[in-house]
């Protein structure tokens, strides 16, 4: 047998491989943690600003907001600052003017749209028991079609005094909020869909209906508690 040795390819020892991977991971870990710590305050401030902007858009007279939870058992409770909301509650925001008087309620609603959940913020006016104004929090709807809910003036007009009165016993809405086909809106609790963007329009209607059915029966009996900023 010939003992012709083929020049062995240069092999890096296992220890060195592990050491290099360890060093690279450590360096990268430091960079990631460092940048997370650096950007966290700014990112949190941005989130708070975005929330305030969304609330002020649907309750334009507002100057300050207080976060509350509507509990599934009925009743409301002020949110503890910095704490995560339990999943069973519905968050809402009581909006106050300069004098600390309640000017409106804002709450989030969401329902499955064409591409993903369409999340909106709506403003509830306790005086007329109606919804005045909505804003889109996030959506991935088709640009130019579904995302018209943000800009379409006729669609936005649905949310001037959209009726969400409660039944006499305050257990549910007197009339379900419903999205109807474009051009067939006859009642103040109906939403006129955008032609060609029915799925997204329906998601808005369903989101508002679900949120209002849960929130308003708990909120309306407790409105007195919210009248003045605590």
């Amino acid at each position, binding site marked *: 047998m010939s003992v012709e040795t083929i020049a062995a390819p240069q092999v*890096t020892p296992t220890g*060195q*491989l592990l050491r*290099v*991977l360890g*060093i*690279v*991971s450590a*360096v*990268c870990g430091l*960079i*990631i943690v460092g*940048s*997370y710590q*650096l*950007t*966290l305050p*700014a*990112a949190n401030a*941005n*989130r708070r600003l*975005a929330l305030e902007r969304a609330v002020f858009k649907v309750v334009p007279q507002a100057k300050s907001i207080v976060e509350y939870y509507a509990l599934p058992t009925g009743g409301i409770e002020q949110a503890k600052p910095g704490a995560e909301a339990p999943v069973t509650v519905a968050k809402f925001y009581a909006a106050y003017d300069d004098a600390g008087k309640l000017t409106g309620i804002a709450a989030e609603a969401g329902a499955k749209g064409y591409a993903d959940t369409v999340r909106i913020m709506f403003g509830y006016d306790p005086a007329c028991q109606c919804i005045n104004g909505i804003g889109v929090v*996030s959506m*991935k709807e*088709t*640009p*130019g*079609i579904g995302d018209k809910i943000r800009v379409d003036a006729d669609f936005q007009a649905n949310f001037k005094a959209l009726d969400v009165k409660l039944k006499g016993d305050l257990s549910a809405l007197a009339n379900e909020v419903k999205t109807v086909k474009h051009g067939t809106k006859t009642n103040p609790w109906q939403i006129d869909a955008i032609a060609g963007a029915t799925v997204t329009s329906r998601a808005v209607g369903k989101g508002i209906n679900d949120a209002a059915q849960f929130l308003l029966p708990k909120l309306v009996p407790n409105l007195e508690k919210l009248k003045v900023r605590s």
Partner: protein
Amino acid sequence: MSANSPGSTQAAPRNMEEFMEGIWERNPVFVMVLGMCPTMAVTVSAINSISMGLATTFVLAASCWLVSVMRHMIPKEVRIATYIVIIATFVTVVEYAIQAISLEVSEALGAYIELIVANCLVLGRAEAHAAKFPPLAATLNATGMGLGFTVGLTMIGAVREILGNGTLLGVSLFGPNFQPWVVMVLPPGGFFTMGAWLLLFAIYRDRKARRGGGGVAAQGASHGA
């Protein structure tokens, strides 16, 4: 094309060459046709394209710099794993940075920021260039590539935004009566626009070659990273 010969002696012109390579001669979008996933997905508007391009530029420059700094110590057996860890690190950094700068941009770009990790342009540059050249040259080349990518994305994004939305950088161009060409902001519009630009560049190269300029640009396509 001498840009890839390591033995060049004139430092300054060579650095310039490194930098310009990605912007024109081997533009990642129109010549190498790399990184098409974000190119098609986020170029619905000029501002998205610019943000995406700059995010990619940062990731490219930073990871190529670090790869180049560590190039002698990284054994070839684990080089891909190392590059990916380095790239993923800077993608995470850029994601945090965007969240800190603007939530709207962060939401508009969505998962495509994270997907920069898998952009073949970035790994391609780390492997084909940064692993062989010193930090300055690697960083310059990567920055040029990134800016070339940004320019390419913006050229597509601007066309799609103008036709599909009637605006450029959010400014209305044709007034309220413009009927937007919605298909342009949908996925097919990305392919139409990309195809149209490639066609224009092909015509340009063809003309240049026929005029006897010797196709520097024409060669580029065969030099993919």
